[in-house]
């Protein structure tokens, strides 16, 4: 196995491309991390090979999580050209704006990245023998059903339950796909971007009924600091060079 040691990301990246061919939609290295995107129909097969093949030997799955890309790049204040016209005083949240009869301030920044989309599942794998990590991402697509990897890594069991609970992503072949973190009888998938931060229901003890009851929330979500995108990272890059003083 001496010849198969994968000790840097470029080697690993090219090995992965070699092995899986056109199953790999993209693979790139950014910030010393290798990200490989595969279609969700291939995920189980790719995971199995990454686990079993001594070339890769990813015996541990470190993390699995869902990401909702539906609001990617959305801002509450547009900053370009604001110097002339000034900023608005407040930010109206999406749910609130209808009552004011004004269009929401939420504007979609021209997605220069083209990343905006639906739900994605991200896997972080670790190979202890090669001391290397890889990040697998699925391409988002509806319906939200993909193969479970519990048969490859037992640890995926709870992570997939979590992703199902928080994002509503279904995992086919999961032995026990129940909610994990939210309340018993919870409705909705709270980590999706369209789920309000204050939720839909609140609970209290009702003295008359002598039990805990659920009611629609009485608070309104509000934005304390608007979300803005600024491109002035030029100062930060100077520091990169100074770096380790």
């Amino acid at each position, binding site marked *: 196995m001496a010849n198969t040691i994968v000790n840097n990301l470029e080697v690993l990246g090219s090995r992965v491309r070699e092995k899986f061919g056109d199953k790999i939609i993209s693979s790139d290295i950014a910030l010393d991390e290798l990200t490989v995107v595969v279609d969700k129909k291939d995920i189980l097969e790719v995971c199995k090979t990454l686990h079993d093949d001594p070339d890769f030997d990813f015996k541990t*799955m470190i993390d699995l*999580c869902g990401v909702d890309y539906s609001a990617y790049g959305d801002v509450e204040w547009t900053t370009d050209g604001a110097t002339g016209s000034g900023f608005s005083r407040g930010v109206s949240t999406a749910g609130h704006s209808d009552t004011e009869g004004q269009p929401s301030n939420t504007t979609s920044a021209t997605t220069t990245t083209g990343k905006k989309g639906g739900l994605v599942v991200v896997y972080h794998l670790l190979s202890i023998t090669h001391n290397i990590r890889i990040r697998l991402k699925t391409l988002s697509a509806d319906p939200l059903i993909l193969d479970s990897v519990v048969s490859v890594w037992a640890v995926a069991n709870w992570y997939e339950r979590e992703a199902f609970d928080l994002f509503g992503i279904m995992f086919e072949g999961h032995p026990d796909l129940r909610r994990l973190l939210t309340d018993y009888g919870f409705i909705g998938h709270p980590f999706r971007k369209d789920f309000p931060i204050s939720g839909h229901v609140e609970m209290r003890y009702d003295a008359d009924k002598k039990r805990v009851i659920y009611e629609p929330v009485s608070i309104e979500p509000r934005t304390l*600091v608007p979300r803005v*995108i600024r491109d002035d990272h030029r100062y*930060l890059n100077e520091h990169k060079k100074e770096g380790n003083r």
Partner: protein
Amino acid sequence: MAEIQNFTLNFGPQHPSAHGVLRLILEMDGEVIERADPHIGLLHRGTEKLAETKPYNQSIGYMDRLDYVSMMVNEHGYVLALEKLLGVTPPIRAQYIRVMFDEITRILNHLMWLGAHALDIGAMTVFLYGFREREDLLDIYEATSGARMHATYYRPGGVYRDLPDEMPKYQASKWHSEKEVAKLNENRQGSLLDFIEDFTRRFPTYVDEYETLLTENRIWKHRTVGIGVVTPERALQLGFTGPMLRGSGFEWDLRKKQPYEVYDKMDFDIPVGKTGDSYDRYLVRIEEMRQSTRIITQCIGWLRDNSGPVMLDDRKLTPPPRESMKGDMESLIHHFKLFTEGYSVPEGEAYVAVEHPKGEFGTYVISDGANKPYRLKIRAPGFPHLAACDEMTRGHMLADVVAIIGTMDVVFGEIDR
């Protein structure tokens, strides 16, 4: 009369050895566990979603509240991920301070774990001993950051302020006479570093004390040897990291294998278990406390000899000093912008792992270039450990469930997030 053999038992969430808010549904055959189904989420606060609605710096305080017995290491993971995205490296002095506090935190965590674990199994004294030492360590936290637990001390670009030159002292009151206070203040005469150094000299003998109480203790061995055995293959399958993985025989420690900050300059050993049972994990953690003391000593030596900034001098990321704000317009603007809007992080994604006292603490941040994270995922080490509860307790007795929960070192702040 027919004998009832199988039944379902509800354990927790208000059971003292449920370590917070764990609810376990146990299916039992007599006193033997056939299936354990942990119900978690009773402490779920949606930290990750909450972080999406706040500027980056405002979430540092939430990190303390994840694993609330190893506060600063949580901050470390988050701050490192931001620094990776921002492309900055903190000054070297800040790195040493961080490493020193990481190790202080590791001792804090292991003391809490040891005390609670021993208390669950029936040894009361260790808990009291552990809290005696934790008091000193929490005083160190307080002297540095102003808070005894939720420090919010690490920032992207360094740490919030330099170590104090003076260790705060006890004052006489109607409960403590001048004489008593003078005795309490004996080791607080010098700087904070003097106090920590004094602690590192005392601490190994304290660890010996814990060991005389437990290591050869017959009851302790009966309750831990051969309990919750995890083979190396299963440990990897179950996603174990940290002492849980090392207890099963893997020499795997991110401080050595994927070093961050100045861990590559530190001299320390990784303890490794043999059998993968609760007793081995106990020995591993005890040895880690000794090794942490070694690292702290090395950091103290360096910090004494070298001074320098502890925060980057970058006004787009770190606030200006208060004095300059009084006279300098630009500093005032920078201060205003940083504390209202915050800084924008370049678009990208980063996963950073640190060796948390409980295992690998990972922070996965996705930024779309805004002043708030687009998505933050916390990879809590306790999460996969607790998920293995079912497998580890199967076939054991009810009393061993408590020992197994204890050996996993679970804290619900991080598991439920």
